[in-house]
């Protein structure tokens, strides 16, 4: 739409529909601020977007999206912005049409798809059934985002799946007295988290079971323990060893529970606070502490945008920001959007790191490299994971500790597998993603090759040939930008950092609340108060005893006339009998 907006005066203008911005939009609208929410893309979600196969392929084949405004004339009171998204595509390929499919391609002249003509028909016809996340994200069952979804009643719009299993890639256990073999066999083992899981686990030794249970139980009040006092500022792994945790258990705790990228980077204090967050979410909705939204992560963003829209926000997609307009007091007064319209904001402007001042473009920093696969075979067999025969599917998150695939693997690889049970793939197909952190200055080729090796070998260990089952593969790099990005530090200009690859939402929610507080300075508003229920209050019910006795709310007289009573009793009894009969059918 190249039209100008009819209204050009707002309280807050927000750019990009990432989670922080969506939360903000919802929260601001609930306290009656006028919000304009723009997004450069033609979809909601920002960096947490979820795309179907067609959209994903467009994203992949287009490559990095950027617009350079540096050649615009410099205006007084306006800072020109450059837009550059965080993505660099490293590799992609897909299964081509078979010759039989080619022969019938004539029939598809009316196919309205933007997928390449030589792509396998099965993929093309099911393109809409895929929900591919741009970055892996999970909700802690007892974390900030779930508490917010409940308190605001926004959770009403959404459905979730509890992750079925958390796995870690570990070497085989060597029994006491046995000589370690030349090459260790590695495989994925499920992390046992409940006492029941631990009891039936055959991989963990008996004493390890005891130490693991003690550790999990103690982590709800670890601060008071003297051992913790001693090790607080020491490396986390030293503290774990002091608690008699074996290397296997340390792997479980560091990579699966604390969800760290490597074992050295964190001290005991930070490590334990992460452990506590994980453990306190256990058992709330299932045996793992994670929820995943059906249809992908962007559902969350969309739900909050929906709230904002219901409460009066204006949404415009495919519209970006070219200039930021400000006054002499260094307050942002508005923006000039890509359609050339000047839009004013009285309270503030929120944007993300896709924008930076025109002369400052970041191309190198730490990043996340992600490999997305569409496969006919699962890496984690749903029957084994759920323990049921003929299981429909599962959702699994797994970790490959650093060094498992050689010294080149400096960081932990996070693997996720979802399928039709998360409404992310059609029946019979699996969406597998591998994600690893990449340091600034490392080579793209090296990380690409590492991910390819890992995914190929993982399939091999199940006697599956990668090329036989993988119908679509894409590898891309996402920058983790932070810092000033060259914009002047206006008080009412707020920048949202890039997603940093951590699976949970805690940081994003805090950031949204933080900006909200600043934007509504001094007014002490509640962040996303409860939405009223559209269905109305529950009806007044007759209490059970009265109902069974045949006494109703509408009973007028206290007089217990014999005939009257017999009649009403029979009526209700007939009802019961009818119900019973229908029950038996």
């Amino acid at each position, binding site marked *: 739409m190249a039209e100008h907006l009819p209204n050009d005066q707002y309280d807050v203008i927000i750019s990009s529909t990432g989670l922080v911005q969506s939360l903000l939009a919802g929260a601001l609208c609930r306290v009656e601020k006028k919000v304009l929410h723009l997004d450069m893309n033609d979809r909601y979600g920002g960096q947490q977007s979820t795309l179907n196969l067609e959209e994903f392929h467009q994203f992949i084949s287009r490559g990095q999206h950027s617009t350079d405004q540096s050649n615009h004339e410099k205006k007084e009171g306006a800072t020109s912005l450059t837009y550059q998204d965080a993505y660099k595509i490293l590799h992609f390929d897909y299964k081509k049409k078979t010759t039989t499919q080619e022969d019938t391609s004539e029939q598809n002249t009316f196919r309205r798809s933007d997928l390449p003509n030589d792509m396998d028909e099965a993929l093309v016809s099911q393109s809409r059934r895929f929900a591919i996340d741009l970055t892996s994200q999970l909700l802690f069952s007892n974390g900030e985002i779930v508490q917010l979804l409940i308190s605001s009643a926004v959770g009403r719009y959404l459905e979730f799946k509890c992750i079925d299993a958390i796995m870690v890639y570990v070497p085989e256990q060597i029994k006491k007295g046995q000589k370690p073999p030349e090459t260790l066999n590695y495989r994925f083992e499920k992390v046992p988290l409940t006492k*029941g899981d631990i*009891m039936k686990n055959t991989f963990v030794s*008996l004493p390890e*079971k*005891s130490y693991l249970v003690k550790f999990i139980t103690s982590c709800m009040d670890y601060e008071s323990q003297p051992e913790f006092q001693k090790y607080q500022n020491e490396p986390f792994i030293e503290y774990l060893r002091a608690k008699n945790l074996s290397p296997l258990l340390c792997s479980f705790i560091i990579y699966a529970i604390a969800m760290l990228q490597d074992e050295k980077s964190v001290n005991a204090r930070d490590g334990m606070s992460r452990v506590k967050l994980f453990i306190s979410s256990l058992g709330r909705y299932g045996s793992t502490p994670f929820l995943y939204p059906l249809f992908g992560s962007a559902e969350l963003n969309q739900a909050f945008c929906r709230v904002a829209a219901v409460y009066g926000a204006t949404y415009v997609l495919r519209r970006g920001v070219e200039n930021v307009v400000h006054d002499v007091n260094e307050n942002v007064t508005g923006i000039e959007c890509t359609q050339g319209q000047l839009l004013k904001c009285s309270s503030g402007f929120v944007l993300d790191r896709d924008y930076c001042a025109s002369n400052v473009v970041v191309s190198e920093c730490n990043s996340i490299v992600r490999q997305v696969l569409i496969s006919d075979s699962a890496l984690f067999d749903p029957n084994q994971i759920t323990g049921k025969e003929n299981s429909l599917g599962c959702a699994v998150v797994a970790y490959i500790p650093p060094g498992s695939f050689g010294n080149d693997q400096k960081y932990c690889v996070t693997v996720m597998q979802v399928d039709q049970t998360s409404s992310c793939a059609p029946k019979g197909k699996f969406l597998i993603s591998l994600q690893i952190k990449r340091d600034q200055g490392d080579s793209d080729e090296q990380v690409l090759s590492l991910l390819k090796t890992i995914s190929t070998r993982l399939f091999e260990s199940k006697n599956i040939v990668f090329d036989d089952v993988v119908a679509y593969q894409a590898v891309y790099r996402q920058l983790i930008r932070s810092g000033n990005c060259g914009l002047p530090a206006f008080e009412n200009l707020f920048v949202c950092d890039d997603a940093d690859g951590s699976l949970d939402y805690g940081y994003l929610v805090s950031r949204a609340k933080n900006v909200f507080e600043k934007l509504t300075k001094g007014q002490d508003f509640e962040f996303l108060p409860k939405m009223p229920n559209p269905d109305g209050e529950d009806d007044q019910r007759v209490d059970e005893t009265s109902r*069974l006795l045949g*006494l109703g709310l509408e009973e007028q007289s206290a007089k217990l006339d014999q005939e009257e009573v017999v009649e009403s009793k029979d009526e209700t009894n007939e009802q019961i009998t009818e119900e019973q009969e229908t029950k*038996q059918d």
Partner: protein
Amino acid sequence: MHNRPRNRVVDEKELDEKRKKITKWNQLKNQIFEERKSGAIDPNQLPKLNNLILLAPEFSSFWNYRKEIITDQLSQVNSEEQKRDIYKKELALTEQVLSERHTKSYLTWHHRKWCIVHVPDLWQNELALTSKLLSYDNRNFHCWNYREFVIKLLNLNPNQELDYCYSLLTTGNEGVSNYSAYHYRSAMLNRKHEEQQIDFDQLLLEEWDLVKNAVFTDSTNQSAWFYNKWIQQKMTHSEEFIQDQVETCESIIEIDGECKWATLTILWNEMNSNKQLSEERLTFLFEQIENLIRLDPLRKNYYLDVKSDLLLLHSKCLQSDNVFKANDLNLTRFDAIVNNAKYENVVELDLSNNHIRAIPNLSSMKNLKRIILDHNKIEFLENVEGLDYVSIKNNQIQHTDEKLVNSIKKIDMEGNPLI
């Protein structure tokens, strides 16, 4: 709560509603009784009883009235299918009662049993029903008993039930202490042993493996330890098994620092063992008993009894002339001597200056002639009929039985607070 006065604010409106309900209930109940008295044994009465049963499932008259009507109905109906339908209606009612939170109603379960025997095609379903109810409350013994009843009807392989118990035990955080599941396993093991002729000791060893996993996972979980006590008792004496038990318990104590149940299990095992214990070992075990008394002062007397048993079993108090003398040892009981074949030939028993509280049944000590129990804490003179000499000075006896005293040749009861 005890000792707290009930100060409920009296709400007239509430009371009035209650009165209304009571009046209605009485009226309906009396009506039913009258109708029955006047001979109304017909199916039309059944619907009237439904609501009343839902309200008060433990009011037996209504269930019995139903049984009367049903039995009458059944005698008038010919086809098997019609009969089954009648039973199915009853089952539906019991199910409704159970699902309305009356899951522990004796009469409802009884009525269900009464009906289900006649409806074989629903037996398999019953398992699913009990599973569901057990998932809400895994200690509902009505449900467990009913399940066992159905298993017998179905003649199911106990292996399936053992698997079911296993899945209950390994679910969530609470499963590991599911006392009922362990107990049910023991019942299933008995069946498995009988039906499949598998060596019981072999089955017990598998259970011990299960217990090992349970107690390492949670060493404070007493359900598993109690189950182990049963395993221990049933296991025919195997030194290897006892050794394994003791080592496992010692590992747990090492990891935990101290564990009451592991210590107690070691003691139970050592008492079962036929091995003669060394002085060193005995001293160690007595230390453990002191530990237990410190850890668990509420059960001090029990631990003192255990200590007495241990002392007597491994004592060197039997002299060459078949006199057993054990004084000043703080013994609280001497049952361990009585049932032990080692002491069959004892002629004289001297246990003065201890803390013994009662005289056990001495009939297995066929050669016993004389017993000396001075300076103890005995309250009742019993089990000493026909002995030559009983010295029971300075105890706590208040009454004597004339017949008993006359049967003893010589008795010394000085220093007792006789009334």
